[in-house]
């Protein structure tokens, strides 16, 4: 039996008929064609499918679409505005925090909640904060730098250097 649900994604309402077993990530990618949210492991390990539900980061491969009825969903497509990139996108861009880019949408959505709860995290807090997101390219250092940079930017502080470090 299908259910009629309305998902509010990045401020726009989408009404659809879904089977209760449809995962939220599939509803977002296939029914709404927002393919910026990636499917990596499909087992809630990798974090590539991370989105925000009512501001809380969630692995959308482990949430049913019917559970998101009436909730505010934010995906990577909603970050940039007419004025330009979101600070977290700018941070990832300037700090070379991606190689292949597959983990990046999930990583950024997770970082947004992390910075909202803890605007000025230490390096250790950032590493614990993104412990549910796997990146197989960068070795994480530039991702941590990007989040530190974004933290400074969002608080109007002096921006750390974005020059690559050679060690």
């Amino acid at each position, binding site marked *: *039996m299908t*259910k009629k649900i309305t998902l509010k994604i990045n401020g726009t309402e989408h009404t659809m008929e879904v*089977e*209760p*077993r*449809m*995962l939220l990530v599939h509803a977002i990618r296939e029914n709404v064609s927002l393919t910026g949210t990636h499917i990596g492991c*499909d*087992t*809630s*390990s990798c*974090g590539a499918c*991370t989105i925000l539900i009512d501001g*809380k*980061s*969630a*692995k959308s491969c*482990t*949430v*049913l679409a*019917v*559970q998101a*009825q009436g909730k505010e969903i934010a995906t990577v497509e909603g970050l940039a505005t007419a004025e330009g990139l979101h600070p977290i996108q700018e941070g990832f861009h300037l700090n070379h925090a991606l190689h292949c880019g597959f983990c990046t949408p999930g990583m950024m959505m*997770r970082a947004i*909640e*992390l910075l909202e709860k803890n605007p000025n995290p230490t390096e250790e807090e950032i590493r*614990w*904060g993104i*412990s*549910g*997101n796997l990146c197989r390219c960068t070795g994480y250092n530039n991702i941590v730098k990007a989040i530190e940079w974004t933290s400074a930017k969002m608080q109007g502080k002096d921006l750390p250097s974005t020059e690559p470090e050679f060690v």
Partner: protein
Amino acid sequence: MIAENFNYDAPTSLEEAIALLHQYGDEAKILAGGHSLIPMMKLRFASPTHLIDINNIPGLSYVKEEDGYLKIGAMTKEVEVEESEIIHAKYPIFMDATKLIADPQVRNFGTLGGNLAHGDAANDHPAVMIALGAEVEITGKEGKRTVGIDDFFHGFYTTAVEHGEVLTEIRIPAASGNYGSAYHKAERKVGDYATAGVAVMVQIDDQGRCTKAGIGLTNVSPLPLRATRSEEVLVGSDLSEAVIAQAAQYAAEDCSPTEDLRGNEEYKRHLVGIITKRMLNKAIVRAKK
């Protein structure tokens, strides 16, 4: 991976949820945080015909001290425990444990009640609840009943929660006097089940004598385990180094770990001994603060 088809209801009251459980029979499952159940359904290890989502029922999420208990609503999420002021101030064992449970996104969903009701000895809260001497409130058609944690776990994925019932509250005797608690698990990576985990609670009188002790073990036996001999050697003692060593040795001897990818039996027993000793020392320091 897609689960088998099922029907979905999201009741807004406990009475409605219990009525639905009775209506649909034992093929119905309760959906709490869903981060154990949904993966199992995707792998088709579980194929309930009805899911009853209890996330829309108000009043099941809280952390408060009342009537001599720390009371935690069954639908309280791990993240809400992590951020609770009373937990920070008096029950640091939950800070130790939640940090090591899965990852931040999963902790945004996972609930304490679900962690217990799942009935998995590999989960972390069962050992914590054993150490703290918790009791669990279960609500059914006839009303509420209370089950002590030692009678709660019946077998692999089975607990005292009968069909047609919902786990609604967890009650822990409130911390008083010189009270200390600590938890640690060895894990290979974030999100892994424990290779071995140990939860400890001690209460100490003004003369330095142990008046109460609780030790629970994670993932080293088919059911979450109470290290009874270890507790007995601690209570009434002065918690000397020799007593702690004896308690740690008993815990290592009395568990029954099985070999898997995380290690062989000998290694796991060794871990239980080491972690028991370290957590006892940590809990004692916290108790004396």
